[in-house]
Structures are given as structure tokens and as C-alpha cells.
């Protein structure tokens, strides 16, 4: 209960901070905040757009939840998301359109994301390279890999823009009515429920969480902690990759430069605000999705930069971390503990590396 309370306080603080910034910029906060709410949830179309935006965030947030719960710091959601998209496009483009193509494409995305995460896990297992760093760096590699592909082998037939050809429409995920909201929302929520059941209601999830909470005690009890970490990282990459595939099959249909547009990093914020709870990530992702949809509306009608949404997200996470550090004694360990441990381990790694 306290954890939900903390998340709500953080969300409210974010909205308040946005209102203050709007006022400081000379916009009447009451009117502009109303536009924000209208744009985010004022109509069924607005709601569908907010939900649409939350889909990739939910996938990458689940990726973060799984990894962080195991004590591995997968900051590579962005890269895994992109590689998932690339794999989905490559496989989807090879097959005649249709449901089979969608499913194979989706599976390719899952495999692609996992493979990208596997590089980091391999470096960790073989050379003790801290995955905090390798996953961040692999993000850049993925961005440039995609950049090369859409300027080279996968560039559209006409070679005018740095983007791929779209997949045939019949390979894409079906949308609801006249909106853009597609089947991916069901997949994302299904994934959240599946991750929840896995983490909290399965023996494998127990082992994974034990590894994250106390790797020594987990090992003493008989858990193969290295295998757990590898598995968690692969699952994490798979979820992010699935997010990329769903985004490609549900929204963009093709690859272009701003394909991921920060979905991987947004996912970290969502996961933290959800305090690493897979079901909590659902409303949190929707909140973040709504923020950016609302900020988009604000940009169109009041000329306020849509970066306001990023500000709100940042404030929410900051407030939550401040609150979470006071909750450290609670079962499950607070988000703040994860950060302290992350910080300590990074220090230790850099110390031993030097």
C-alpha cells in the first residue's frame, strides 16, 4: 500500500512540477494543464493514443523489472528494442504477408533482443565486464547498426529517405476500429501478467529474485546463480526485443532513424516508478504514455515543447527515489537499495579494473 502511495505522490509531484514550469514560461497553468489532460484522456481517440504510446514502454519496463530483480543492470533496453525491430523487419520482409508472417516476425524480434542482451552477458561471464557499461554501449552500437541498415542494405527501394520499406499491411498487427491502438496492448498486458506469475508464483522466479537479493545466500541454498543471471538477462532482452517487434508490427511498419525514440530509457523510468513490480508497470506505463500524448497536444495547440513530458517523467522518478530511500526496510527491498548496490558494484568493478 505504501508503495502505491509513493508512486501516486511521485506522479502528482510530476504534474505539479509541469504546471510550475508552464507558469514560469508564461503559460497560464490552468488552461495549459487542461489542454494536457484533454490531449491525454479527453476523448476516446486521445485515450487510444495514450495507450498506444504505453505499449513499447511497458515492454521495456518489464525487461528492466526482470533484469533488476535478478540484480543485473540491463540498461540496454533501447538497443535490444532496436535489434528486436530489425529482426522483426528482416524476417517479416522475407515471408509473404499474413498472420504467420506476423507471428514469425514477432518471434524473430524476441530472439533478436535476447541475442543482443546475450552479448553483454557473455562479456560478463567471460571477462567480468560490468553489464551496466556494456549494455549502455551496446545501445549505441544498435543505433548505428540500424543507421547503417536503413542507409544501406535495408533502405527503401526508392532510396530517398533513410528508412526501410514498410512491411505489407497484412503482416501488421490488427488495430481496434478506427484508432491506431493495436493488438500489441493485449500482448503487453499479457506479458506483464506472465512476468508477474513467473517472478512471484514460480520456483524459477523465486530463484531469480533470490539471486538478485542476496547472491551468496542464493548460491549457498543451491541456486546456480550464474545461470540465473544469464537467464534473467536473456529474458530481459527478449522482452525489450518483443517491444521493438510489436512497435514495428503495430505502429511504424518500417524502420527509420527515430524508431526507438527513447523507449528503452523510458522503460527504466517506468520500471522504477512501478518499483520493479510487473503489474505496477501497467498503470505506470499508461501514465507515461499519457504524459507524452498530452505533451504532444500541448505542443500542437500552445506551442510548448513536448519535452515537457520528459521533465514530468524525470520528476516522478526523482520524487519516487527520494521516497523509496525511506522505505528501505520494507520487504522486497526498495528501489533505492538497488541503486545503492548498483553504485557500489560499479565502484568496485572500476576499482578492480584499474
Amino acid at each position: 500500500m505504501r508503495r502505491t502511495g509513493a508512486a501516486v505522490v511521485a506522479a502528482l509531484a510530476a504534474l505539479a512540477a509541469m504546471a510550475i514550469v508552464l507558469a514560469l514560461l508564461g503559460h497560464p497553468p490552468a488552461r495549459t494543464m487542461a489542454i494536457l489532460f484533454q490531449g491525454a484522456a479527453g476523448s476516446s481517440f486521445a485515450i487510444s493514443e495514450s495507450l498506444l504510446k504505453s505499449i513499447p514502454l511497458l515492454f521495456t519496463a518489464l525487461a528492466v523489472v526482470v533484469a533488476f530483480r535478478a540484480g543485473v543492470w540491463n540498461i540496454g533496453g533501447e538497443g535490444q528494442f532496436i535489434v528486436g525491430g530489425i529482426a522483426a523487419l528482416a524476417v517479416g520482409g522475407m515471408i509473404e504477408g499474413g498472420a504467420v508472417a506476423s507471428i514469425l516476425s514477432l518471434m524473430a524480434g524476441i530472439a533478436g533482443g535476447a541475442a543482443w542482451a546475450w552479448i553483454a552477458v557473455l562479456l560478463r561471464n567471460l571477462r567480468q565486464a560490468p553489464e551496466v557499461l556494456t549494455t549502455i554501449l551496446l545501445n549505441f552500437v544498435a543505433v548505428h547498426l540500424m543507421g547503417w541498415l536503413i542507409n544501406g542494405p535495408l533502405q527503401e527501394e526508392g532510396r530517398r529517405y533513410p528508412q526501410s520499406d514498410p512491411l505489407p499491411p497484412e503482416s501488421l498487427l490488427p488495430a481496434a476500429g478506427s484508432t491506431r491502438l493495436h493488438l500489441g496492448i493485449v500482448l503487453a498486458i499479457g506479458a506483464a501478467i506472465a512476468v508477474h506469475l513467473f517472478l512471484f508464483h514460480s520456483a524459477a522466479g523465486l530463484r531469480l529474485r533470490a539471486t538478485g537479493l542476496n547472491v551468496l545466500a542464493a548460491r549457498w541454498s543451491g541456486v546456480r546463480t550464474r545461470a540465473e543471471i544469464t537467464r534473467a538477462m536473456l529474458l530481459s532482452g527478449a522482452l525489450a526485443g518483443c517491444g521493438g517487434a510489436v512497435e514495428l508490427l503495430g505502429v511504424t511498419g518500417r524502420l527509420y532513424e527515430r524508431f526507438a525514440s527513447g523507449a528503452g530509457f523510458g522503460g527504466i523510468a517506468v520500471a522504477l516508478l512501478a518499483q520493479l513490480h510487473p503489474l505496477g508497470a501497467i498503470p505506470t506505463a499508461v501514465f507515461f504514455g499519457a504524459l507524452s500524448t498530452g505533451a504532444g497536444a500541448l505542443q500542437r495547440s500552445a506551442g510548448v515543447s513536448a519535452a515537457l513530458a520528459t521533465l514530468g517523467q524525470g520528476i516522478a522518478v526523482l520524487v519516487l527515489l527520494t521516497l523509496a530511500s525511506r522505505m528501505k526496510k520494507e520487504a522486497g527491498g526498495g528501489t533505492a537499495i538497488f541503486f545503492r548496490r548498483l553504485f557500489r558494484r560499479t565502484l568496485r568493478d572500476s576499482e578492480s579494473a584499474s
Partner: protein
Amino acid sequence: MAFGELRRLTRSFDRTKAVAGIDLDFEPGEAIALVGENGAGKTTLMRMLAGIIPPDDGTITVGGERVRGTASASAARIEMVQQHLNLAGALTAAENLILHDENLPLLLTGKRVGALARSAVSRSGLRFTKLQERAGDLSVGEASRLELIRTLARGPQVLILDEPTAVLAPPEVLELTRQLRALTAEGMTVILISHKLAEVFAFASRVVVLRNGALVLDAPIGQTSKSSVAVAMMGRELVSPGTRKATIPRRPRLRLDRVSTSARDHRTPLREVSLEVGSGEITAIVGVAGNGQNALADLLRGLIEPAGGTVAIDGVIQTARSLFAAETAAHVPSDRARDGIIAAMSVAENLRLPGRAEARIPVDQAIERYAIRGAASQSASSLSGGNQQKVLLARELSRDPLLIVASEPTRGLDIDAAAFVHREFRAAADRGATVLIITSDLDEAASLGDSIHVISGGMVSEKLASSTPAEQLGLLMAGDR
């Protein structure tokens, strides 16, 4: 009135009393050894004297002045070298030496640093040649010498050393002991925290023994002996050995043949340990903590590979991998908080680890049977230490194991709970299990073990009868063989 007076010093951490009303006097020029087992309160007592932590109750007076906090402690020139080195690994030894100097010049050239560092070294009276090396590249012995030089350069009147020899090689220990004696001859009070009796008797003019936060022995070194100090550290005289009769014909199950482990894995590795424990047999490995017990426990848990020799179970040579995977083995680690319990998880989750599919006793039954005071859904961190230990034992023993390796299994348990655990071990042995108890509790070793081995300096003694007198065990534990 004595030069230094500690009166009724008391300090608790959470619910445990680390130091419970200790009085201690000392004079200039004394060489005092403060000994006791882990958790006896030695470090806490000395940290209070050095002003690092405040006492809950009691007073400290040195040279007529009250000591309250680090400022008055350094005014009274009380300095403490803590157990964990406080060096900045990326800086050079010279830079580390002057790091805490408050009157450094504004512009610090390499030459100036060198000059300041050399003067610090000469003030300490010790030698140090590797001033230009990075502290992180020094050996542990060199680093602890650097730390000592830094402390001595401040000209202490009272010098406290917290287990300085734990990381030193024997010749370095000898050298350090000699230097410390020279310092006391000049009027410095040196208090050495240790649990190694050999060095205590080489260094000290007076020995003070703590046990469970209380002072249990304070005697001039000439009026005591290693074995009586050992017995004072461990507590209680030996009681009559156990009465369990072996009912099952024993055949050797666990066999260690000249097993050594690597010094990379443990500070005190195993050295050519040979050991044989039969089915239905309880063997106690007894010794002062820090003498290779961790290496033995980690080896049998399958966390490290032996560097030499072989471990065999039922005649089959084992690797770390096979030992780790053995589902018929139960392991109770000595460091419950670090290796045993996952504090942030619930009691039920802790009992379910490692989540294997085979049948276990249900969680409710485990809680009832082991009289765990706590609910299944309660987080393990909210349990008392004794109840956490029960959770751990319930988890491990309910596997119905064929091999039990338990380190300090009854630490933190009250008498009833400890008796219950002992009954469980005996019952397991009666069912044919092989039980190895690694303990620093002589009573436990004698009452539970069918036989006893003493572990000291990574070596394990011959098999001894459980009726061996405490004095003889004390001598073996002190490393006199």
C-alpha cells in the same frame, strides 16, 4: 587513579548487547592483548575508546581528561588502526601518508609530497621503501605497514591495533611484535586485538579476555596459560560427552585426502587436510574462528575447487560442481546474514529455496516443528537471529539429507532451541546421515561429536575422542602441536 579508565562501558546494536558494562584500566607502557571470539565485543570496546562510536552508557577517562568523540580522543592521542585498511588505492603510498595532514601547503608538488611522506615515515620509526608505488599495488602486508606508519606518525600515546596480523605472513608478524614491544618500552600503551594465542603470548604483558560483551579474564601474561585463555574465550568447562550410541554399522562416506585450498580463495586456506566421516557418524571440527573453517565449509559446499588432494563421497571423487549439485546434502553456513538468509524475502520463500521440485515438508509444518516465532508471510529480516537460524536449519534439514555440513549451527539459539537442533542432528545420524559440525563451541563439539578434530591454521588434527580434556584441545587450538 589509573592513566586510562574505562568505566561501565555499554553499547548495543539493534537488540544485541555488544559490550555490557566493562571496566578496564591501563597504564603507559603496557602491552595489552584483547582477545575473544568473533562478536565478543573487542572491536566495539576499542572503537568506543577511540571515540569512533559513542557508548550507550559509561565513561572513558585518559590522562585525567574525559574522552567523548574523535576530537577529544585525538587530543588524548588515542589512535586506532582499524581492521579494514583505509587506503586510497589509486594514490601513491606517499600521498596516502599525507592525506590526513591538515596543514598541507597550497601548492603540492611531487617533491614536497615526497619530503612530507619521508618525514612521516621517520617519525614513525618504521621503514618503508615503496613510497612512490600506488597503494593499490602494495601487498596486504605492505599496505597494513603503511597504515601503521600513518598512525604512528601522529605520535599516539595509546595505540589500538585491530587484528593487524590477520593479513601478515609469519615473519611480518614477528617483526611487528618486535616493533610494538619497542614502542611500549618508550611509554606508549599498545592494545592489540587478536584471537591468535601464539602472537598474544609473544607480544603482551597482560591479557584481557572478552566473551559475549563481558570481561571474563584480566591477568598478567605470566600468570596465565594459552589453554586457560582458550578456555576463557570459548566459555564453559567441558561437560560430559554425549551419550548417543551408534546403532548403525558405520561405513566411511565423506573422505578428504590431503586436501589443500588456494590462498586466493581464503585468507586461511586448508593445508593438506585428511578427514574421514562415516555414515551415521557425527564429527565435530572445533577451533578458534579464522583458522580455515570457511575454506572447509566452502569446499564442501562446492563453491571452490580444491587446489590439491581429493574429496570423495562414498568412494566417488567429487568436483566443486558435483558437490554443489548434490541434492542429498545439507549445508548450514556460518555467516547467517550473508550466506544463509535472504532478509528481504518472506519466511516461506526462504524455506522454499532453492525451489527444487522434490517433496519438502510444507511451510506451515516447518514453522511449527522448528518453533519459528514468525508467520510464513513475514519478512525474514523481521525475525530475531535465533529464529532466522531456525528457518535456515528447517530448510536444510527437511531435505532429509545424507550429508550434513553445519557451521556454527546453534549460534544465537537459546538453550532449548540448541538442544532441539542437536536432537535433530542426532536423529539424522541415527538414520544413517553423515554429520560434520564445524564449531567454535567446545561444549557443542564434545556433547554432539562422536569424535573431534581440532582445526588450526588451516590444518586439521588427528581424530580425537570426544572425551579429550578441554586443556588439551585448547593447546591444539592455540596451534601448539
